[in-house]
């Protein structure tokens, strides 16, 4: 199998802790869930039974992960770092808000679909090609290409989904 970048023991420690908290929260949610006593429901069929068991299982596996991380040196002073350093990744920090603005701020908010898609795609292409375009002295050309590509793709998707396949678009 392809080898992936392994997260550090410290990252596993934190994720183990997160699973314990989540698992216990799920188990608590299952335990406190209505047992439908007014319907004379048997304990074996109460709605919270399965979430309770799943919550305990997740918490247990989180604890095993945490213990394994501790044994691997997660608490050692040198065990810092790991794969999650989002501050170093301007790409992801730019992309997430861009996608959220499109999916939450534009779609379903009264903006016609092709225009929303064109705005998102043009912004995406312009931002992520900016460095290369600037280096090549083609900033204006980059903007024109981004806008043209966005409009063409937006209109094409609208045509294919709405007119060709008769589907509703947001």
């Amino acid at each position: 199998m392809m080898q992936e970048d392994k997260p550090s023991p410290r990252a596993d420690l934190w994720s183990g802790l997160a699973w314990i908290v989540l698992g216990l929260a799920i188990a608590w949610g299952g335990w406190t869930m209505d047992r439908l006593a007014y319907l004379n429901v048997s304990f074996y069929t109460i709605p919270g039974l399965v979430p309770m068991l799943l919550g305990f299982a997740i918490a247990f596996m989180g604890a095993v992960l945490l213990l394994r991380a501790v044994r691997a040196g997660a608490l050692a002073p040198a065990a810092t770092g790991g794969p999650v350093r989002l501050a170093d990744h301007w790409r992801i920090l730019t992309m997430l808000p861009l996608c959220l603005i499109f999916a939450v701020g534009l779609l379903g908010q009264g903006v016609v679909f092709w225009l929303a898609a064109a705005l998102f795609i043009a912004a995406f292409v312009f931002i992520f090609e900016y460095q290369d375009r600037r280096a090549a002295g083609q900033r204006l050309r980059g903007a024109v290409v981004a806008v043209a590509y966005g409009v063409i793709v937006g209109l094409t998707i609208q045509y294919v989904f709405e007119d060709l396949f008769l589907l509703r678009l947001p």
Partner: protein
Amino acid sequence: MFDGLFAFGHAIAGMLSPMTILYALGATLIGLVIGALPGLTATMGVALMTTLTLKMTPNEAILVLICTYIGAIYGGSRSAILLNIPGTPASAASCLDGHALAKQGLAGRAMGIATSGSVVGTWIGMLCLALFTPVLGEMALKFGAYEFFWLAVFGVVISGNLTGTDPLKGWIAGFLGLFIAAIGQEGMYAYDRFTFGIHDLSGGIGLIPALVGAFGFAEVLTVMKDPPRKYIINTFDRVIPRIRDVLQYWRTVIRSGLIGTFMGIVPGVGEDVAAWSSYAAARRASKEKEKFGKGSVEGLMAAETGDNACIPGAVIPVLTLAVPGSAPAAVLLAAMLIHGVRPGPLIMIENPGFVYDVVAMMLIASFGILFYGLTLTKLLVKILLVPRTLIMPLIFVLCAVGAFAIASRMFDVYVMLGFGVIGFLLRLFNYPVAPLVLGIVLGDILDKNLRRGLVLSDGDLTPFITRPISAVMLAAILFIILMNVPPFRRRFDAASAAVKLRLRQLFGRTA
């Protein structure tokens, strides 16, 4: 036997209309392009295409999705050979020998081997699908609540064990999926669980929006987080597959086809494990072990036969148990339900013709990849060079559209976004996503059947461990878990070595 052949012939005849062939060719091409582009997976392709099939007839829709699925798994070999980047995870094994052949100036031959391996692999899997589905369907009729409960647990455990590099993380992802399936109205009393007063959550988390998020948006985030790489494409020779390659390695082809199909049948394991298992088995049995990894025709043939044979294999449990054998098969299962097809133990009674329709669809798709394998090489190379800054925003827009179009509600777009971020974080922390998906599919089966079983036995746990099929599945689950506990594994390895030695002594052979 003859009933099956007759039904298959009927299915083929029913699909030979110009429109159906057009759909098949179009879907195979789309699948091929999706598979060839690094970062876009078969699961994402099938999930996005599900949207486009909503207004089609059930058979047309499933044909389109199967062609996309087969096209995507085959398409992954193109970037594996030409760029040394697997187009889909299923093609990772093909990189080793495929790209080595390309570096020797034999990229065309490598693509020909990939084409012939994929086609023959699909045929072997298809044959197994036609032969084993009725048998497994009959066996599935013996499944009661206890067996279905253990099947759900087994699926998550085996998927978690085989799909990632860390079984514990795979199991956590799988159990998270089981919990996600518990959100919304439960099936016995229509009681809202974990909905926090959000009306849209009452219907539960839609599988398609979740899959589009976990495999589409998460892929977009994963691909875009790193700076772009420059691709170098080697020149290539003729791409026409050679029959000689198949005939010369016929044992490898058949072995890989059977391994691939078996891996497909195992719930939630999928094409990448099938390809690696076939590759490893071919290497063990090969007379030319030293060539593996350096441009072995046999190695590439094994990997490509294995991953494509896995597709029909993954559809077998979909049809007989309503349990997917791989992540794209989970989408296929969801699409079948959307189109009113009810897969499960009763399919051979209620709708036996559908099984042979699926076999016919696989055959048509295999001809599709053969057609494109011979004709579209140069165009695909050009597609591989399209910058990802142009492809990824388009994919994200399609993810939003795909999530919305299933039920025409914005809530599903938000589910897609949520699962995209969850999928991205899981990958970042080395958690496999396939068990999560399988968990979401199996959650309802586990929930209903555990509670049904407990009611039937009045709280007695004995039937869960004493009924024959339940006992076998429980033993398998415990064995898989214990094999990941180092002291048990050491003892097991020592014991099995001692047994092997004893057997050799008994039969008078020396090591």
